[in-house]
């Protein structure tokens, strides 16, 4: 099929679908007019029932915690898949140390860059932690904070160079973080069952409304998500970065011993 026929087919489908889409859009409630009963109900009862201020976190970790469990393992599947697909070529042996880039001079970093990175790194980590622990009161949570934490480790890369980064970040530890976080989350689901409650039922003390320590079991689940996401995304970055390395190494097979 030539691209022209393809676009013609798409256009044809578009023309056929247009009246349908128009009917659906006009059948929907006008934008901003009303919200669904389910959401309204959650806004009404959750602050009292679970002592948390952030409804989105309450849904993610309590009311619809199973979705988040699935989401966490989706992330785990994607990262495991990435590792398998990228390492399959490199071989497992190469993953432990940084591959070098022979033939390219390492540009010495200026003192200023190193200094800035040494300040920015901990600050980013601090911000990530802040976002993680405030899950139940303000916007943010384990997922967002975890991604920020993982990005923070990249600042080590900027400041200390690739080898320094690889020294600080070990693949095994990341596996442990990722798997451990996911395990913690799953156990948060299973543990309440031992007491006769439902899967993921919030049986811990709920704390005070608007307090950092509010939400009971949600706090543990949030921690699990943060660990899994921070470990997972760092692993992702690491595997991707390694890919740019290997390319150079293969350009000059003579120095493969690196």
């Amino acid at each position, binding site marked *: 099929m030539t691209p022209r026929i393809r676009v013609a087919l798409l256009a044809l489908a578009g023309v056929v679908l247009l009246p349908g889409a128009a009917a659906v859009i006009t059948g929907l409630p006008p934008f901003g007019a009303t919200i669904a009963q389910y959401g309204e109900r959650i806004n009404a009862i959750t*602050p009292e029932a679970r002592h948390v201020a952030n409804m989105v976190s309450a849904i993610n970790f309590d009311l619809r915690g199973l979705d988040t469990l699935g989401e966490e393992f989706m992330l785990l599947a994607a990262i495991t898949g990435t590792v398998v697909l990228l390492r399959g070529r490199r071989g497992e042996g190469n993953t432990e140390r940084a591959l070098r880039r022979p033939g390219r001079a390492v540009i010495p970093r200026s003192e200023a860059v190193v200094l800035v990175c040494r300040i920015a790194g901990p600050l980013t980590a601090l911000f990530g932690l802040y976002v993680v622990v405030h899950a139940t009161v303000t916007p943010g949570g384990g997922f967002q904070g975890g991604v920020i934490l993982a990005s923070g480790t990249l600042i080590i890369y900027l400041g200390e160079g690739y080898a320094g980064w690889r020294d600080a970040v070990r693949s095994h530890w990341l596996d442990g973080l990722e798997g451990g976080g996911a395990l913690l989350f799953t156990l948060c689901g299973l543990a309440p069952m031992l007491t006769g409650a439902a899967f993921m039922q919030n049986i811990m003390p709920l704390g005070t409304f608007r307090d950092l320590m509010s939400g009971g079991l949600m706090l543990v689940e949030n921690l699990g998500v943060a660990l899994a996401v921070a470990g997972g995304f760092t692993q992702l970055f690491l595997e991707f970065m390694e890919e740019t390395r290997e390319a150079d190494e293969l350009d000059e097979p003579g120095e493969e011993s690196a």
Partner: protein
Amino acid sequence: MSVVSNILPYAVAVWLFGAGLYGIATSRNLIHLVGCLGVCQSATYVLLLGLGYRWGSIAPIFYDHPPGTPAVDPVMQALVLTDIVVGATLTALLLVLTIQVYKRSGSLDPEKLRPMRARQGSDRAEGSDRGHDGKRTVL
């Protein structure tokens, strides 16, 4: 104005999906194609959050406002959060596949990648899987 703003978010969602699909159908570079897929996905974000919005409501976080203040739909936001994770995982996986495809075939053009089709030199046994040869011998 009001008629436009009543349906605008939904129309934008439809537009984004269509644009992304057009990009996928005509893309000549796999990395570009992954970007287009991201556009298709952003259509779902816009649609869901548009459906969950209500004029004059606060964010569903009762920190500065007391519980009971009209707030927008938190469920839609939770759904979009999950959706964003889906998007990140898909992008990562597709980019990995793209990198590996490039290493294998030296090309990023989807038009040149035909799974199980063209003769692939040493990669495959003599005689292609493609129909014309296959038909003569198989059927």
